[in-house]
């Protein structure tokens, strides 16, 4: 079991304090990413996916955010409480991040090539000429002709901006790439191009990836393992096959039931009743219990811990692991 993990998050708790009200964004999250592995983090709006990603990068705005407890280990090194100087070395070089919205994440008044070069100059001892050459190579790698180096973001379409973001993130060949909804803002045919590019990274550079998305289809296309997040904690995690074919948690089941299926004909969808709970007023027991068709008194009183149902397949539900 003591196999070395690239990223290991244990019992992470993050809260935001807004107007004296405590918002519990992340509640006891456990997550691992192995060397060269692609893990999908799935959940709906407000589940705490982005907060988790920002905490790994040490980018939680404090105040109002606060990491209350837990640990985030990168190659065995604790990142919570690490010095800002150290975090700056890690960001971009060891771990880098692609943000959801390529339209607003690039600087509109800098040439796209220079934005890639900036990352390289920051982390590598290269002359400006060499860094420029490397930035051009990066552009080519993501499928943009190097002669567009001198252009500005507004001259690029959404899909191409996302490619530039990917080039920035990969410029220093990081071990771990965190991609926060990298294709959500894109059309499907362009999304297919970007997913192909992302899948290629894993093969060519052995880059590990944490892919954050709400799209179960995207996860099935590119990930090895998946973690399903609800109201700040992981309710189910395992290999793609475990979670998609042997679904155990009622929330995961609900997500699949809500999706119109392309390959089968369903007359009526089976949505999950009700709404996401207010993160400043979470239910006492299992956070999903108010919406869960299987909920019992125990679920409403006591919070289920993640248990290993089959090797590597964890689920946090009293009704899943044959406990009832």
């Amino acid at each position, binding site marked *: 079991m003591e196999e070395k993990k690239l990223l290991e998050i244990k019992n992470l708790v993050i809260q935001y304090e807004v107007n004296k009200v405590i918002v519990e964004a992340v509640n006891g999250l456990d997550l691992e990413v192995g060397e060269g592995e692609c893990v999908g983090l799935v959940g709906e709006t407000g589940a705490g996916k982005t907060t988790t990603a920002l905490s790994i990068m040490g980018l939680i705005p404090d105040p109002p955010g606060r990491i209350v407890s837990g640990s985030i280990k990168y190659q065995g090194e604790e990142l919570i409480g690490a010095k800002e100087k150290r975090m700056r070395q890690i960001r971009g070089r060891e771990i880098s991040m692609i943000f959801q919205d390529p339209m607003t994440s690039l600087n509109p008044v800098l040439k796209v090539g220079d934005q890639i070069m900036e990352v390289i100059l920051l982390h590598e001892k290269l002359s400006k000429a060499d860094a420029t050459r490397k930035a051009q190579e990066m552009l080519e790698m993501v499928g943009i002709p190097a002669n567009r180096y001198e252009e500005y973001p507004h001259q690029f379409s959404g899909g191409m901006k996302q490619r530039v973001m990917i080039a920035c993130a990969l410029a220093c060949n990081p071990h771990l790439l965190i991609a926060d909804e990298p294709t959500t803002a894109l059309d499907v045919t362009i999304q297919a191009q970007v997913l192909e590019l992302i899948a290629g990274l894993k093969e060519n550079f052995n880059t590990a990836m944490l892919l954050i998305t709400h799209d179960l289809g995207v996860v099935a296309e590119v990930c090895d393992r998946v973690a399903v997040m609800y109201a700040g904690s992981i309710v189910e995690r395992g290999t793609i096959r475990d979670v998609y074919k042997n679904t155990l948690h009622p929330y995961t089941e609900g997500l699949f039931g*809500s999706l119109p299926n392309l390959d089968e004909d369903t007359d009526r969808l089976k949505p999950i009743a009700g709404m996401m709970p207010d993160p400043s007023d979470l239910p006492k027991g299992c956070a999903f219990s108010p919406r869960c068709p299987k909920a019992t008194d125990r679920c409403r009183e006591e919070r289920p811990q993640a248990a290993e149902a089959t090797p590597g397949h964890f689920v946090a539900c009293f009704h899943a692991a044959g406990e009832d």
Partner: protein
Amino acid sequence: MENLVSVRNLKKYFNTKEGQLHAVDGVNFDIPTGTTLGVVGESGCGKSTLGRVVLHLLEKTDGQIFFDGKDISDVTPKELHELRRQMQIIFQDPFSSIDPRMSVSQLIGEPLKIYKLVKSKEEYNKRVKEIMDIVGLASRLENSYPHELDGGRRQRIGIGRALILNPRFIVCDEPVSALDVSIQAQILNLMQDLQQERKLTYIFITHNLSVVKHISNDIMVMYLGTAVEKSESKELFKHQYHPYTKALISAIPRIDIDHKMERILLKGELASPINPPDACRFAPRCNYACDVCRQSMPPLEEVTPGHFVACHRVRELNDL
């Protein structure tokens, strides 16, 4: 079955600095009463413009629009005002399409006031309550404001506003795209129930093919202002004949991990819709484009009964 809405050779051009932008370029369709026409395509294909032109929210450049057997291509503002009672729209963004300073009951009841349909305060309240009930908004929310509600509830307000006049036809412009999947399923079920109860006719505009398959009777696939393929919904997902439709359907990420489809990757991105040449709009990205594709625009032809495709090489490529 009678067609409630038909359009013939509908065109909408916008004048821009660079030239004429062909947003909708010669579209034809018929929608039988009580059914749904799904319009799919990627950003910039003209699907939203099409929906708006049909409702006269944008004035057409050319072509004809028929509603309930009558030509409504050129109506006077007064006639249009009356028509609007029967033709409504649900917008994509539940965050920006409703007035943040109006309460839920004001938002839903506003159309009643505009059309002076109620005589007393009691009747007004009763009608608003009825609609709130139908769209699944708890009556305790009647005095809430939009910022207090989540996206799903706001979209229910949008649906309520469209429904309160008892319309016969609704253009739904990406009504679930901004919502999470579990909420999206609730709204889709609601829209299907309403259609059955009230014999509503929908144009359902979306970029999400799984959603459109689920809710539509017929589907029209658009590319740069033109319809490239049109057929009955189930048929379209069984047989795709246009290279663009094939690529589009193969590009959807599947949740079924045991039956992976071969993804067809398209080259490049959407060409400019400004002053397009007389050629197949898809030719620059098409893997099968040849000289004839670059020389004339292919017409939408019936290749098998009820299945229409606009491609010069459709028969040759699909052995039809």
